[in-house]
Protein backbone atom coordinates (compact mmCIF):
# COMPACT_ATOMS: atom_id res chain seq x y z
CA UNK A 1 0.00 0.00 0.00
CA UNK A 2 1.65 3.17 -1.13
CA UNK A 3 1.16 6.29 0.88
CA UNK A 4 1.97 9.80 0.01
CA UNK A 5 0.99 12.60 2.25
CA UNK A 6 4.46 14.01 1.64
CA UNK A 7 4.47 13.99 -2.17
CA UNK A 8 1.96 16.81 -2.34
CA UNK A 9 4.22 19.80 -2.92
CA UNK A 10 4.41 19.51 -6.70
CA UNK A 11 1.93 21.61 -8.64
CA UNK A 12 1.33 21.48 -12.37
CA UNK A 13 1.19 25.11 -13.55
CA UNK A 14 1.42 25.05 -17.36
CA UNK A 15 -1.75 25.84 -19.29
CA UNK A 16 0.07 25.08 -22.55
CA UNK A 17 2.07 22.04 -23.59
CA UNK A 18 4.38 23.36 -26.30
CA UNK A 19 7.32 20.99 -26.11
CA UNK A 20 9.30 18.69 -23.87
CA UNK A 21 12.55 20.61 -24.13
CA UNK A 22 11.25 23.19 -21.67
CA UNK A 23 9.89 20.66 -19.17
CA UNK A 24 11.76 19.41 -16.13
CA UNK A 25 12.17 15.72 -15.38
CA UNK A 26 9.75 16.24 -12.50
CA UNK A 27 7.10 17.70 -14.79
CA UNK A 28 7.47 14.86 -17.28
CA UNK A 29 7.23 12.31 -14.50
CA UNK A 30 4.13 14.04 -13.16
CA UNK A 31 2.40 13.76 -16.55
CA UNK A 32 3.31 10.06 -16.76
CA UNK A 33 2.05 9.41 -13.23
CA UNK A 34 -1.16 11.25 -14.01
CA UNK A 35 -1.60 9.27 -17.23
CA UNK A 36 -1.61 6.04 -15.22
CA UNK A 37 -4.88 7.07 -13.65
CA UNK A 38 -6.47 7.55 -17.07
CA UNK A 39 -5.56 4.15 -18.49
CA UNK A 40 -8.47 2.29 -16.96
CA UNK A 41 -11.08 4.63 -18.47
CA UNK A 42 -10.47 2.97 -21.83
CA UNK A 43 -10.96 -0.53 -20.48
CA UNK A 44 -14.18 -0.26 -18.51
CA UNK A 45 -17.74 -0.43 -19.80
CA UNK A 46 -18.49 3.30 -19.46
CA UNK A 47 -15.47 4.77 -21.27
CA UNK A 48 -16.04 8.28 -20.05
CA UNK A 49 -15.28 10.44 -17.04
CA UNK A 50 -16.50 13.97 -16.37
CA UNK A 51 -13.50 16.27 -15.72
CA UNK A 52 -13.77 18.30 -18.97
CA UNK A 53 -17.56 18.42 -19.00
CA UNK A 54 -18.70 21.66 -20.61
CA UNK A 55 -15.25 22.38 -22.11
CA UNK A 56 -14.61 22.69 -25.83
CA UNK A 57 -11.50 21.28 -27.48
CA UNK A 58 -10.64 22.19 -31.05
CA UNK A 59 -8.47 19.94 -33.19
CA UNK A 60 -6.70 22.53 -35.35
CA UNK A 61 -4.75 20.44 -37.86
CA UNK A 62 -2.91 22.16 -40.69
CA UNK A 63 -1.21 18.89 -41.66
CA UNK A 64 -2.55 15.41 -42.31
CA UNK A 65 -2.83 13.08 -39.39
CA UNK A 66 -4.99 10.14 -38.51
CA UNK A 67 -3.49 8.67 -35.37
CA UNK A 68 -2.73 11.80 -33.40
CA UNK A 69 -5.89 13.55 -34.44
CA UNK A 70 -8.18 10.64 -33.60
CA UNK A 71 -6.31 9.97 -30.41
CA UNK A 72 -6.79 13.57 -29.23
CA UNK A 73 -10.44 13.57 -30.31
CA UNK A 74 -11.14 10.34 -28.47
CA UNK A 75 -9.15 11.46 -25.43
CA UNK A 76 -11.15 14.70 -25.25
CA UNK A 77 -14.48 12.93 -25.62
CA UNK A 78 -13.57 10.37 -22.96
CA UNK A 79 -13.12 13.31 -20.62
CA UNK A 80 -16.57 14.59 -21.64
CA UNK A 81 -15.37 17.62 -23.62
CA UNK A 82 -16.98 18.72 -26.88
CA UNK A 83 -14.74 18.60 -29.95
CA UNK A 84 -14.55 20.77 -33.01
CA UNK A 85 -12.66 19.24 -35.90
CA UNK A 86 -10.85 21.73 -38.06
CA UNK A 87 -9.04 20.76 -41.24
CA UNK A 88 -7.16 23.05 -43.52
CA UNK A 89 -8.74 21.70 -46.67
CA UNK A 90 -12.34 22.36 -45.71
CA UNK A 91 -11.84 25.61 -43.81
CA UNK A 92 -11.35 29.25 -44.56
CA UNK A 93 -7.59 28.75 -44.48
CA UNK A 94 -7.95 27.68 -48.08
CA UNK A 95 -9.47 31.13 -48.60
CA UNK A 96 -6.38 32.78 -47.15
CA UNK A 97 -7.30 33.25 -43.48
CA UNK A 98 -4.25 33.52 -41.22
CA UNK A 99 -3.49 31.17 -38.35
CA UNK A 100 -4.17 33.89 -35.82
CA UNK A 101 -7.47 34.95 -37.39
CA UNK A 102 -8.61 31.34 -37.54
CA UNK A 103 -7.71 30.84 -33.90
CA UNK A 104 -9.28 34.12 -32.77
CA UNK A 105 -12.49 33.22 -34.53
CA UNK A 106 -12.56 29.80 -32.95
CA UNK A 107 -11.84 31.40 -29.60
CA UNK A 108 -14.77 33.78 -30.07
CA UNK A 109 -16.96 30.68 -30.17
CA UNK A 110 -15.81 29.90 -26.66
CA UNK A 111 -13.21 27.18 -27.00
CA UNK A 112 -11.05 26.17 -24.04
CA UNK A 113 -8.24 24.05 -25.49
CA UNK A 114 -6.60 24.22 -28.93
CA UNK A 115 -4.76 21.12 -30.11
CA UNK A 116 -2.63 22.33 -32.99
CA UNK A 117 -0.54 20.67 -35.66
CA UNK A 118 1.25 22.96 -38.05
CA UNK A 119 4.03 22.67 -40.60
CA UNK A 120 5.73 25.77 -39.22
CA UNK A 121 7.92 25.21 -36.18
CA UNK A 122 6.89 27.54 -33.34
CA UNK A 123 3.25 27.91 -34.47
CA UNK A 124 1.90 26.55 -31.16
CA UNK A 125 4.06 28.97 -29.20
CA UNK A 126 2.93 31.88 -31.34
CA UNK A 127 -0.68 30.89 -30.74
CA UNK A 128 -0.20 30.51 -26.98
CA UNK A 129 1.02 34.09 -26.77
CA UNK A 130 -1.95 35.47 -28.64
CA UNK A 131 -5.01 33.65 -27.38
CA UNK A 132 -6.41 32.87 -23.94
CA UNK A 133 -7.23 29.23 -24.56
CA UNK A 134 -4.85 26.43 -23.57
CA UNK A 135 -2.60 25.31 -26.41
CA UNK A 136 -1.38 21.75 -26.89
CA UNK A 137 1.22 21.07 -29.55
CA UNK A 138 0.33 18.04 -31.71
CA UNK A 139 3.43 18.47 -33.90
CA UNK A 140 5.06 21.62 -35.24
CA UNK A 141 7.44 21.54 -38.21
CA UNK A 142 10.61 19.65 -37.36
CA UNK A 143 10.53 20.92 -33.77
CA UNK A 144 8.45 18.88 -31.37
CA UNK A 145 5.65 16.38 -31.03
CA UNK A 146 5.46 16.34 -27.26
CA UNK A 147 2.62 13.87 -26.73
CA UNK A 148 4.40 11.33 -28.95
CA UNK A 149 7.57 11.73 -26.88
CA UNK A 150 5.52 11.34 -23.71
CA UNK A 151 3.71 8.23 -24.86
CA UNK A 152 7.01 6.67 -25.91
CA UNK A 153 8.61 7.19 -22.50
CA UNK A 154 5.35 6.12 -20.84
CA UNK A 155 5.45 2.85 -22.79
CA UNK A 156 9.11 2.24 -21.97
CA UNK A 157 8.64 3.07 -18.30
CA UNK A 158 5.63 0.81 -18.04
CA UNK A 159 7.55 -2.18 -19.37
CA UNK A 160 11.09 -1.53 -18.14
CA UNK A 161 10.14 0.17 -14.88
CA UNK A 162 12.40 3.16 -15.45
CA UNK A 163 14.44 4.85 -18.17
CA UNK A 164 17.45 5.35 -15.95
CA UNK A 165 20.55 3.94 -17.65
CA UNK A 166 18.76 2.55 -20.71
CA UNK A 167 20.37 2.82 -24.14
CA UNK A 168 17.90 3.88 -26.79
CA UNK A 169 18.46 4.09 -30.54
CA UNK A 170 16.29 6.35 -32.66
CA UNK A 171 16.73 5.27 -36.25
CA UNK A 172 15.97 6.89 -39.58
CA UNK A 173 15.19 10.34 -40.85
CA UNK A 174 16.27 12.32 -37.80
CA UNK A 175 16.60 15.59 -39.68
CA UNK A 176 12.89 15.81 -40.50
CA UNK A 177 11.63 14.22 -37.31
CA UNK A 178 9.94 16.15 -34.54
CA UNK A 179 9.29 12.77 -32.89
CA UNK A 180 13.05 12.22 -32.61
CA UNK A 181 13.48 15.58 -30.91
CA UNK A 182 10.65 15.21 -28.43
CA UNK A 183 11.78 11.67 -27.65
CA UNK A 184 15.34 12.89 -27.15
CA UNK A 185 14.28 15.48 -24.57
CA UNK A 186 11.98 13.16 -22.67
CA UNK A 187 14.33 10.19 -22.70
CA UNK A 188 17.48 12.04 -21.68
CA UNK A 189 15.69 13.98 -18.95
CA UNK A 190 14.51 10.68 -17.49
CA UNK A 191 18.06 9.32 -17.48
CA UNK A 192 18.37 7.33 -20.71
CA UNK A 193 21.20 7.54 -23.22
CA UNK A 194 20.05 8.24 -26.76
CA UNK A 195 21.81 7.36 -30.01
CA UNK A 196 20.61 8.82 -33.31
CA UNK A 197 21.16 6.35 -36.13
CA UNK A 198 20.80 7.08 -39.84
CA UNK A 199 22.61 8.10 -43.00
CA UNK A 200 24.57 11.39 -42.73
CA UNK A 201 22.16 12.98 -45.22
CA UNK A 202 19.29 12.48 -42.76
CA UNK A 203 21.08 13.84 -39.68
CA UNK A 204 20.31 17.40 -38.55
CA UNK A 205 23.21 19.72 -39.33
CA UNK A 206 23.41 20.95 -35.72
CA UNK A 207 23.26 17.48 -34.19
CA UNK A 208 26.52 18.12 -32.33
CA UNK A 209 24.71 20.58 -30.10
CA UNK A 210 22.20 18.01 -28.88
CA UNK A 211 22.75 15.69 -25.89
CA UNK A 212 22.99 12.64 -28.11
CA UNK A 213 25.56 10.43 -29.78
CA UNK A 214 25.36 9.70 -33.48
CA UNK A 215 25.99 6.51 -35.41
CA UNK A 216 25.82 5.94 -39.15
CA UNK A 217 25.57 2.18 -38.80
CA UNK A 218 22.61 0.29 -37.39
CA UNK A 219 24.72 -2.86 -37.26
CA UNK A 220 27.07 -1.15 -34.83
CA UNK A 221 24.38 -0.27 -32.31
CA UNK A 222 21.80 -3.05 -32.63
CA UNK A 223 23.50 -5.27 -30.06
CA UNK A 224 23.88 -2.55 -27.48
CA UNK A 225 20.47 -1.00 -27.13
CA UNK A 226 17.52 -1.74 -24.82
CA UNK A 227 15.00 0.11 -26.97
CA UNK A 228 14.93 0.85 -30.67
CA UNK A 229 12.59 3.47 -32.07
CA UNK A 230 12.22 3.19 -35.86
CA UNK A 231 11.13 6.40 -37.52
CA UNK A 232 9.02 6.45 -40.61
CA UNK A 233 10.68 7.55 -43.84
CA UNK A 234 8.62 10.63 -44.56
CA UNK A 235 8.57 10.71 -48.33
CA UNK A 236 6.41 13.85 -48.24
CA UNK A 237 9.18 15.77 -46.51
CA UNK A 238 12.20 14.45 -48.36
CA UNK A 239 13.63 16.74 -50.98
CA UNK A 240 16.50 15.77 -53.28
CA UNK A 241 17.97 12.31 -52.98
CA UNK A 242 18.92 11.67 -49.35
CA UNK A 243 19.62 8.01 -50.11
CA UNK A 244 20.26 6.24 -53.43
CA UNK A 245 17.30 3.88 -53.29
CA UNK A 246 14.66 2.59 -50.94
CA UNK A 247 16.26 -0.83 -51.17
CA UNK A 248 19.62 0.49 -50.15
CA UNK A 249 18.13 2.39 -47.21
CA UNK A 250 16.33 -0.70 -46.12
CA UNK A 251 19.50 -2.76 -46.44
CA UNK A 252 21.49 -0.50 -44.13
CA UNK A 253 18.88 0.95 -41.79
CA UNK A 254 15.85 -1.33 -41.94
CA UNK A 255 14.99 -3.37 -38.87
CA UNK A 256 14.97 -6.86 -40.31
CA UNK A 257 14.38 -10.19 -38.63
CA UNK A 258 18.00 -10.95 -39.44
CA UNK A 259 19.23 -7.90 -37.49
CA UNK A 260 16.87 -8.67 -34.64
CA UNK A 261 18.76 -11.92 -34.02
CA UNK A 262 21.70 -9.86 -32.81
CA UNK A 263 19.62 -7.62 -30.55
CA UNK A 264 19.10 -8.10 -26.82
CA UNK A 265 16.33 -10.66 -26.28
CA UNK A 266 14.20 -8.15 -24.36
CA UNK A 267 14.71 -5.21 -26.71
CA UNK A 268 11.60 -3.06 -27.20
CA UNK A 269 10.77 -2.26 -30.81
CA UNK A 270 8.88 0.99 -31.25
CA UNK A 271 7.53 2.95 -34.18
CA UNK A 272 5.46 6.14 -34.11
CA UNK A 273 3.44 5.04 -37.15
CA UNK A 274 2.32 4.95 -39.82
CA UNK A 275 4.63 2.09 -40.79
CA UNK A 276 6.19 1.62 -44.20
CA UNK A 277 6.24 -2.16 -43.97
CA UNK A 278 9.33 -3.66 -45.52
CA UNK A 279 11.12 -0.31 -45.64
CA UNK A 280 12.24 0.88 -42.21
CA UNK A 281 10.87 -2.21 -40.52
CA UNK A 282 10.01 -5.73 -41.70
CA UNK A 283 6.50 -6.94 -41.05
CA UNK A 284 7.80 -9.89 -39.09
CA UNK A 285 9.49 -7.51 -36.67
CA UNK A 286 6.67 -4.95 -36.53
CA UNK A 287 4.25 -7.72 -35.56
CA UNK A 288 6.79 -9.70 -33.52
CA UNK A 289 7.09 -10.43 -29.82
CA UNK A 290 9.35 -7.46 -29.09
CA UNK A 291 7.11 -4.95 -30.82
CA UNK A 292 5.17 -2.53 -28.61
CA UNK A 293 3.82 -0.48 -31.49
CA UNK A 294 0.15 -1.01 -30.68
CA UNK A 295 0.89 -0.58 -26.99
CA UNK A 296 2.22 2.88 -27.91
CA UNK A 297 -1.06 3.77 -29.58
CA UNK A 298 -3.02 2.57 -26.56
CA UNK A 299 -0.85 4.48 -24.12
CA UNK A 300 -1.14 7.57 -26.31
CA UNK A 301 -4.79 7.80 -25.28
CA UNK A 302 -3.96 7.85 -21.57
CA UNK A 303 -1.15 10.35 -22.05
CA UNK A 304 -3.31 12.71 -24.10
CA UNK A 305 -6.12 12.52 -21.58
CA UNK A 306 -3.61 13.42 -18.87
CA UNK A 307 -2.28 16.37 -20.87
CA UNK A 308 -5.75 17.75 -21.63
CA UNK A 309 -6.72 17.33 -17.99
CA UNK A 310 -3.57 19.03 -16.67
CA UNK A 311 -3.60 22.09 -18.95
CA UNK A 312 -7.25 22.61 -18.08
CA UNK A 313 -6.41 22.33 -14.38
CA UNK A 314 -3.69 24.94 -14.73
CA UNK A 315 -6.09 27.25 -16.55
CA UNK A 316 -8.71 26.81 -13.80
CA UNK A 317 -6.15 27.78 -11.17
CA UNK A 318 -5.19 30.94 -13.01
CA UNK A 319 -8.66 32.27 -13.68
Amino acid at each position, binding site marked *: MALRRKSKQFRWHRKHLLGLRELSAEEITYILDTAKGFE*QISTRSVKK*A*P*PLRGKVVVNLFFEDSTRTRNSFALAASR*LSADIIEFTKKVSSVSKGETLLDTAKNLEAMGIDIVVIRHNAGGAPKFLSRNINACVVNAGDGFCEHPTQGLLDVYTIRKIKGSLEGLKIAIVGDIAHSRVARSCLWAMTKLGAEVIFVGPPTLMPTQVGRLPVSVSYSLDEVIEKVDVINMLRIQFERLGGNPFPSVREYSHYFGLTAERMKRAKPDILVMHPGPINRGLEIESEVADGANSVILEQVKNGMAVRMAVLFLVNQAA*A*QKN
Partner: protein
Amino acid sequence: MKVILNCEQIEQILRDLTGHIISEIPAELDVAVIGIRSRGEILAHRLSSRLSQQLSKNIPCGTLDITLYRDDLNSPQGSAQPQVRTTEIGFDIDDKIIILVDDVLYTGRSSRAAMDALIDLGRPRAIKLAVLVDRAGRELPIQADYAGFKADVAPGKLVQVNFTESDGKDQVVIE
Protein backbone atom coordinates in the same frame (compact mmCIF):
# COMPACT_ATOMS: atom_id res chain seq x y z
CA MET B 1 -3.68 19.42 18.22
CA LYS B 2 -6.15 17.31 20.15
CA VAL B 3 -6.38 13.52 20.01
CA ILE B 4 -10.00 12.45 19.72
CA LEU B 5 -9.43 8.75 19.06
CA ASN B 6 -6.47 6.67 20.13
CA CYS B 7 -5.25 3.34 18.87
CA GLU B 8 -7.46 1.24 21.18
CA GLN B 9 -10.55 3.25 20.38
CA ILE B 10 -9.96 2.87 16.64
CA GLU B 11 -9.55 -0.88 17.14
CA GLN B 12 -12.86 -1.01 19.03
CA ILE B 13 -14.61 1.01 16.33
CA LEU B 14 -13.36 -1.31 13.59
CA ARG B 15 -14.62 -4.29 15.58
CA ASP B 16 -18.03 -2.64 15.98
CA LEU B 17 -18.24 -1.59 12.32
CA THR B 18 -17.43 -5.13 11.20
CA GLY B 19 -20.07 -6.60 13.53
CA HIS B 20 -22.62 -4.05 12.42
CA ILE B 21 -22.04 -4.79 8.71
CA ILE B 22 -22.22 -8.56 9.25
CA SER B 23 -25.45 -8.33 11.25
CA GLU B 24 -27.15 -6.19 8.63
CA ILE B 25 -26.21 -7.78 5.34
CA PRO B 26 -27.82 -11.13 4.46
CA ALA B 27 -25.16 -13.83 4.29
CA GLU B 28 -26.15 -15.04 0.83
CA LEU B 29 -25.38 -11.72 -0.84
CA ASP B 30 -22.02 -10.85 -2.40
CA VAL B 31 -20.20 -8.11 -0.52
CA ALA B 32 -17.13 -6.12 -1.54
CA VAL B 33 -15.29 -3.28 0.14
CA ILE B 34 -14.03 -0.25 -1.78
CA GLY B 35 -11.96 2.47 -0.16
CA ILE B 36 -11.64 6.06 -1.33
CA ARG B 37 -8.00 7.14 -1.75
CA SER B 38 -6.03 7.54 0.28
CA ARG B 39 -7.02 6.99 3.93
CA GLY B 40 -10.19 5.15 2.93
CA GLU B 41 -7.96 2.66 1.14
CA ILE B 42 -6.28 1.59 4.37
CA LEU B 43 -9.53 1.43 6.27
CA ALA B 44 -11.07 -0.65 3.47
CA HIS B 45 -8.21 -3.16 3.61
CA ARG B 46 -8.64 -3.55 7.35
CA LEU B 47 -12.39 -3.93 7.10
CA SER B 48 -12.25 -6.44 4.27
CA SER B 49 -9.75 -8.64 6.07
CA ARG B 50 -11.88 -8.60 9.23
CA LEU B 51 -15.00 -9.37 7.23
CA SER B 52 -13.22 -12.15 5.32
CA GLN B 53 -12.05 -13.70 8.57
CA GLN B 54 -15.36 -13.57 10.37
CA LEU B 55 -17.44 -14.67 7.40
CA SER B 56 -14.89 -17.34 6.41
CA LYS B 57 -14.99 -16.25 2.79
CA ASN B 58 -13.02 -13.84 0.69
CA ILE B 59 -14.46 -10.33 0.71
CA PRO B 60 -12.77 -8.53 -2.20
CA CYS B 61 -11.28 -5.11 -1.64
CA GLY B 62 -10.59 -2.29 -4.09
CA THR B 63 -9.43 1.29 -4.20
CA LEU B 64 -11.24 4.16 -5.85
CA ASP B 65 -9.65 7.39 -7.02
CA ILE B 66 -12.32 10.08 -7.21
CA THR B 67 -10.24 12.98 -8.59
CA LEU B 68 -11.91 12.98 -12.01
CA TYR B 69 -15.32 13.15 -10.36
CA ARG B 70 -14.65 16.01 -7.96
CA ASP B 71 -16.98 18.98 -8.23
CA ASP B 72 -14.26 21.58 -7.65
CA LEU B 73 -11.98 20.77 -10.61
CA ASN B 74 -12.88 23.94 -12.44
CA SER B 75 -12.63 26.29 -9.50
CA PRO B 76 -9.33 27.52 -8.10
CA GLN B 77 -8.36 25.24 -5.24
CA GLY B 78 -5.81 27.30 -3.41
CA SER B 79 -2.60 25.49 -2.76
CA ALA B 80 -3.97 21.96 -3.03
CA GLN B 81 -4.00 20.54 -6.56
CA PRO B 82 -5.59 17.11 -6.68
CA GLN B 83 -3.43 14.46 -8.32
CA VAL B 84 -5.08 11.80 -10.44
CA ARG B 85 -4.20 8.33 -9.24
CA THR B 86 -5.28 4.87 -10.27
CA THR B 87 -8.52 3.14 -9.44
CA GLU B 88 -7.75 -0.45 -8.57
CA ILE B 89 -10.80 -2.63 -8.47
CA GLY B 90 -9.96 -6.13 -9.65
CA PHE B 91 -13.49 -7.51 -9.56
CA ASP B 92 -16.86 -6.91 -11.14
CA ILE B 93 -19.04 -4.64 -8.98
CA ASP B 94 -22.30 -5.60 -10.73
CA ASP B 95 -24.94 -6.95 -8.33
CA LYS B 96 -22.64 -6.75 -5.32
CA ILE B 97 -23.28 -4.89 -2.11
CA ILE B 98 -20.48 -2.34 -2.08
CA ILE B 99 -19.28 -1.05 1.25
CA LEU B 100 -17.82 2.33 0.31
CA VAL B 101 -15.23 3.34 2.87
CA ASP B 102 -13.78 6.72 3.77
CA ASP B 103 -11.92 7.99 6.81
CA VAL B 104 -14.00 11.11 7.45
CA LEU B 105 -17.49 12.02 6.24
CA TYR B 106 -17.84 15.80 6.33
CA THR B 107 -19.43 17.81 3.49
CA GLY B 108 -20.52 14.67 1.62
CA ARG B 109 -18.88 15.84 -1.59
CA SER B 110 -16.31 13.05 -1.73
CA SER B 111 -19.02 10.46 -1.21
CA ARG B 112 -21.06 11.98 -4.04
CA ALA B 113 -18.02 11.86 -6.33
CA ALA B 114 -17.29 8.28 -5.26
CA MET B 115 -20.83 7.15 -6.02
CA ASP B 116 -20.67 8.67 -9.49
CA ALA B 117 -17.30 7.02 -10.09
CA LEU B 118 -18.68 3.65 -8.96
CA ILE B 119 -21.75 3.86 -11.17
CA ASP B 120 -19.44 4.34 -14.19
CA LEU B 121 -17.85 0.99 -13.29
CA GLY B 122 -21.05 -0.99 -13.12
CA ARG B 123 -24.35 -1.39 -11.30
CA PRO B 124 -23.97 -2.59 -7.74
CA ARG B 125 -26.98 -4.05 -5.93
CA ALA B 126 -26.48 -1.40 -3.26
CA ILE B 127 -23.86 1.04 -2.04
CA LYS B 128 -23.41 1.39 1.72
CA LEU B 129 -21.25 4.10 3.23
CA ALA B 130 -18.93 3.27 6.13
CA VAL B 131 -16.75 5.90 7.80
CA LEU B 132 -14.46 6.10 10.77
CA VAL B 133 -15.41 9.66 11.73
CA ASP B 134 -18.79 11.23 10.99
CA ARG B 135 -18.22 14.95 11.24
CA ALA B 136 -21.14 17.40 11.24
CA GLY B 137 -21.28 19.87 8.33
CA ARG B 138 -22.99 18.16 5.42
CA GLU B 139 -23.44 20.18 2.22
CA LEU B 140 -25.24 17.39 0.35
CA PRO B 141 -28.06 15.06 1.39
CA ILE B 142 -25.81 12.11 2.23
CA GLN B 143 -25.40 10.11 5.41
CA ALA B 144 -23.32 7.17 6.55
CA ASP B 145 -24.82 3.71 6.96
CA TYR B 146 -22.02 2.71 9.31
CA ALA B 147 -20.38 5.51 11.27
CA GLY B 148 -17.65 4.79 13.79
CA PHE B 149 -17.46 8.01 15.77
CA LYS B 150 -19.60 11.13 15.57
CA ALA B 151 -17.74 14.42 15.98
CA ASP B 152 -18.94 17.99 16.03
CA VAL B 153 -15.89 19.97 15.05
CA ALA B 154 -15.77 23.72 14.43
CA PRO B 155 -15.51 24.73 10.76
CA GLY B 156 -11.96 25.58 9.80
CA LYS B 157 -10.54 22.81 11.96
CA LEU B 158 -9.06 19.74 10.30
CA VAL B 159 -9.87 16.21 11.36
CA GLN B 160 -6.74 14.25 10.59
CA VAL B 161 -6.87 10.45 10.53
CA ASN B 162 -3.52 8.72 10.93
CA PHE B 163 -2.89 5.05 10.31
CA THR B 164 0.08 2.87 11.18
CA GLU B 165 0.47 1.91 7.50
CA SER B 166 0.83 5.50 6.32
CA ASP B 167 1.73 7.59 9.34
CA GLY B 168 3.31 5.17 11.78
CA LYS B 169 0.53 5.37 14.32
CA ASP B 170 -3.23 4.87 14.61
CA GLN B 171 -4.95 7.98 15.88
CA VAL B 172 -7.43 10.68 14.98
CA VAL B 173 -6.56 14.29 15.84
CA ILE B 174 -8.14 17.70 15.42
CA GLU B 175 -5.81 20.39 14.15
